[in-house]
């Protein structure tokens, strides 16, 4: 992750097609195009894991079936706790084989159709249910030194609780952090950076104009005027406010927006240096 920040490599989130897609072929093609474009830009492609509890195909199987070529260090796989043990192991094995090193380990959202890892599955004895902490411990134990494990940070959750959770995640082996989407800046993210000066952090930039969706995603009302919200300007502000951080782009528009963000990081940095 530190390497990504130093080299101004964006993390670009890409969602695999949903399981119930009625136009799967087209969706697969779109995914392929997006993946290849991110690879060509030298950015890091971050593939979600049943985001929001919607059943979707797995990043690893997408890469395998579509014969995509991940560039070393430029693919990050999300991995949540809603899997069977067999599936979890299969995903980890695939990642290892394909030399995908970065995993974002999250608790995730369930649904009626998704299985949930049990404490026994991941060798946890002291908990009632598996969270990212138990999953981190499991991966670190089963694959020592293979992966770089990251975790999520939600500045919209009650602060004390969120920091306590972060402490457990770091203890369990997390070595980078990605925040929930931040508009311009967030005091709780500032505190996070203060508290963990040695851990690389990427702030998430909400690239959709639909700010209402963001409130839904983080579970808290994000006070922002939907009329005046400008994702690209907000991204610039993030670079200015968090020069030490990487940036994770969610819901990036590949048609027009992608070109506008290409080189943006460098541009903001040189402006900042100049001023």
């Amino acid at each position, binding site marked *: 992750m530190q390497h990504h920040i130093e080299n101004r490599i964006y993390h670009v989130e890409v969602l695999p097609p949903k*399981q*119930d897609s009625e136009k*799967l072929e087209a969706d697969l093609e779109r995914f392929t195009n997006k993946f290849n474009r991110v690879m060509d830009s030298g950015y890091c492609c971050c593939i979600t894991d049943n985001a929001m509890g919607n*059943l979707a*195909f*797995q990043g690893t*199987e*997408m890469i395998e*079936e579509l014969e995509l070529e991940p560039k070393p260090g430029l693919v990050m796989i999300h991995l949540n706790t809603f899997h*069977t043990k067999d*599936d979890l192991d299969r995903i980890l094995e695939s990642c290892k084989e394909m030399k995908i090193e970065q995993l974002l380990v999250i608790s995730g959202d369930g649904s*009626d*159709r*998704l*299985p949930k890892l049990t404490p026994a599955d991941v060798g946890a004895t002291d908990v009632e249910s598996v969270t990212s902490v138990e999953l981190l411990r499991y991966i670190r134990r089963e694959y020592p030194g293979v992966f770089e494990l990251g975790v999520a940070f939600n500045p919209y959750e009650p602060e004390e609780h969120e920091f306590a959770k972060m402490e457990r995640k770091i203890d369990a082996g997390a070595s980078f952090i990605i925040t929930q989407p931040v508009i311009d800046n967030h005091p709780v993210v500032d505190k996070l950076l203060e508290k963990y000066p040695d851990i690389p952090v990427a702030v998430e930039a909400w690239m959709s104009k639909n700010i209402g969706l963001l409130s839904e995603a983080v579970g808290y009302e994000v006070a922002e005027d939907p009329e005046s919200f400008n994702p690209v300007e907000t991204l610039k502000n993030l670079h200015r406010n968090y020069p030490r951080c990487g940036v994770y782009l969610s819901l990036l528009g590949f048609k027009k927006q992608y070109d506008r963000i290409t080189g943006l990081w460098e541009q903001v940095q040189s402006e900042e240096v100049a001023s």
Partner: protein
Amino acid sequence: MKMVVCVKQVPGTHDAKIDPETKRIVREGIKAVMNPFDTYAVEEAVKIKEKSGGEVIVMTMGPPRAETVLREAISVGADAGILLSGRAFGGSDTWATSYALAKAIEKIGGVDLVLCGKQAIDGDTAQVGPGIAAQLGWAQATYVMEIPESNNGVITTRRMHEDGWDLCEITLPAVLTVVKDINQPRVPTLKGRLAAQKLDIPVWSPEDIGADEELIGLNGSPTRVVKTNPPPPRGAETLVLNGSPSESAGTLVRELRRRGLL
């Protein structure tokens, strides 16, 4: 082991809102899905196949679009699908449905085991599974929560009852209906999904299965729905208690007493 899994496409709902007037559920986001109980039947058949070999054929009766649930089952490991479709099947009640499915099972031939979900979430009758068994004259086990063993023409089932369970050894062929507790259905893989899209699914008409036209569809259905009504409203406003825990508890218990519920 040759297995047939009978599945049904039903309206699924993701979301509910409460109508403040009637206190009744307003469904939102309705989408056709495989009946949830049937996903467990499919998974169980695939597991049996993986353990002791055999073939899993998934079958449904419905309009042409019901084919999607067959492909869904194929994407998680069923080998083939059959769609019973035709205008004459329309309006079937559980009697006529079990007759048509039984005729198709006879036509497939050599079937050892039929699996169904406990019930469909639209009709909620739980009648088709035992109905198929009766049509075929086979043994049955309903509310099956575990299949500890299946070999040499005998299957062992654990049936769930209100007051516990029993373990039955059943001579095949037989019909089983399963509950959610039996397994955790797998999620389709992309490989499975792509393979399922390519597979041809034969459509069988009433003539194809040799059905007596007096016994299928509306003709073959003894029951008739004569009218449908919305359920009566749930009634009065919600009494919201947001005082201290002891205040709320006190008010609640007084309210229960007043209504003669305690």
